[in-house]
């Protein structure tokens, strides 16, 4: 164990996977110099064949990822920002997500599309989307949304080893948060949620960037005698439905916190899941905390107002519990 930032944890995981499997290759825009630091030093270590800068050509990058994977490589395709996935969307939505199915399983496509997503950096609307809901609906792409440095390391290793396309969405603006990260090989299963904090009164399902504020809220409410369970699904495709249902059955209340816009968000899916599988256990309507259905604003006070924060999460938790605000 060592204390590391998310970006270092990801860098470790890529290096370990490239070391153990010579067929892992990495390409993307500025991966050599590494804008975020997650691919730093890999070109020097693994050479110019396996680590390559691409032109700013997202259509081609995503298409080439499909072709190279179909031809036998494990491809890490770095898309830089989540919004740039839209520019390269054809090969993700029409090719990577469909090719195996359309050809009745003739081909495996081990591809990791990785990108930094989410707001909070005044990067404005074209660099701040939380894109996971869009990808969740494609069908053939797995979606990893790690909420801690250790999970980022374990899920990235799993994504590289998986024989399917995975969209790995990191919350890593300014290097991401710090946390204890296991040394050496560390692989988590895709599709396994983790209870980040156990509780008995209400379940918060927190996604990606929302894990940390959800944990703080749970900590504060504990001082008032309110016991909040925080569950991090860690991957959205596959989704650990059983873990969510078990938690909601235990607590009887559900709040989903998701930085995506509310309409058709991961929160929408998880609330629907609770309706279908544990309505009888709900003691209050399930609730969602999201960004409203607007584009991310630039100005710091505006951006701060629209991204769910601890105060907003706590308010919705109290409402769901029927507990009045203390202040």
């Amino acid at each position, binding site marked *: 164990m060592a204390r590391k930032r998310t970006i270092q944890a990801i860098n470790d995981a890529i290096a370990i996977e490239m070391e153990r499997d010579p067929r892992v290759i990495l390409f993307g825009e500025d991966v050599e110099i590494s804008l975020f630091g997650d691919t730093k030093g890999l070109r020097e270590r693994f050479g110019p064949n396996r680590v390559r800068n691409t032109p700013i050509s997202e259509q081609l990058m995503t298409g080439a990822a499909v*072709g190279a994977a179909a031809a036998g490589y494990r491809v890490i395709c770095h898309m830089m920002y989540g919004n740039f996935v839209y520019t390269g969307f054809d090969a993700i939505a029409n090719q990577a997500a469909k090719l195996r199915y359309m050809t*009745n399983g003739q081909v495996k496509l081990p591809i990791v599309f990785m990108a930094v997503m989410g707001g909070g950096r005044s990067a404005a609307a074209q660099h701040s989307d939380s894109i996971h809901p869009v990808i969740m609906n494609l069908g053939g792409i797995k979606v990893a949304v790690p909420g801690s440095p250790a999970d980022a390391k374990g899920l990235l290793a799993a994504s590289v080893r998986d024989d399917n396309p995975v969209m790995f969405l990191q919350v890593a603006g300014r290097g991401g948060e710090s946390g204890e990260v296991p040394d050496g090989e560390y692989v988590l299963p895709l599709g396994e949620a983790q209870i980040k904090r156990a509780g008995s009164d209400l379940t918060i399902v927190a996604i990606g960037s929302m894990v940390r504020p959800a944990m703080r809220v749970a900590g504060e409410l504990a001082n008032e005698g309110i016991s909040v369970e925080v569950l991090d699904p860690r991957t959205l495709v596959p989704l650990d439905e059983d873990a969510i249902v078990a938690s909601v059955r235990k607590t009887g209340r559900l709040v989903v916190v998701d930085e995506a816009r509310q309409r058709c968000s991961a929160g929408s899916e998880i609330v629907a899941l609770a309706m279908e599988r544990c309505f009888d256990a709900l003691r209050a309507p399930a609730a969602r905390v999201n960004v409203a259905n607007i584009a991310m604003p630039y100005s710091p006070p505006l951006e701060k107002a629209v991204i769910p924060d601890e105060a907003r999460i706590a308010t919705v938790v109290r409402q769901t519990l029927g507990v009045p605000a203390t202040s």
Partner: protein
Amino acid sequence: MSDSTEDRQRSGGSSTGRAGASDVHLRLYRRMLLIRLMEERLGEVQKAGDLPGPVHLYIGQEAVAVGVCDHLDDRDWIASTHRGHGHFLAKGGDPTAMIAEVFGRASGICGGKGGSMHVADFSRGILGANGIVGGGIGIATGAALAAQLDGHGRVAVAFFGDGGANQGVLMESLNLSAIWKLPLILVCENNGFSEFSPTATVTAGEIVARARPFGVAGATANGNDVLDVHRVAGEAIDRARRGEGPTLIEARTYRTRGHVETEHTFLSTKYRDDAEVEAWKALDPIASFAARLTDEAIDRERLDAVISDVRAEVDAAYAAAAQAPWPAVDEAYRNMFA
């Protein structure tokens, strides 16, 4: 360098002698005829209303797929288009499995889950037909990257049309494949139409000229002359195998059938003159090549034997496909993920 040298000799390089040439020519003729007869039959089946979905026939363009793919073996890659039956067959795909796929049957090459626009056989390097115009360009570029990393002299070929040439990904691929010197052959089949729009109304300049600013080799071929395509493609593929980078080939040909076989059911106006179609039919790549073979004193009997052989193969493929069972409904839920 390449472990496929033998295959390239098989496919008839420039050193092929006279006797060898006639074998090569008959092989090219046979493959073109197979595509033609398979496609003509498909048109009849569509007309009779016996196909579940739309088909885009390759009739008139056979010389391009055959002239290029004759230089390839199963270790080389191709990515194809929505008009992809010809590429599939030219690359050695199984006719029966292809037709069963178009019929939506369990024995189809994709188990009935892809249909006409998605015939693929990865075991033969056929990365698939593609329902997205230009969709194969990026895929072939990635396969070319894999081929380069493998270092065995393999190549990747992207087939696309004049319509696909107007997708931005072609520019992206010309640029990157030049920078990385990828063993990629970009084959534009200019068949005169982007769906229903005549090429000249939607396409500026010469497509082959788009190679020049990137320092990519560009070449034109008469897409109705299989030997011209064969020569031009052979040079490009040899260069790619030697590690000398990509080539853009513009093969000029003509789509004598519609964009889609059912177009008469929904188009209220004509988008081309009958006289134009007839003029191109007079340049038919298969009839003209047959005439040339006869001029070359290839035995009429040998030619007739090829024709009856191909007819029998086509009959057998359609008979088997027509009798093949439908897929079980459970199959709809399989193979989304590995």
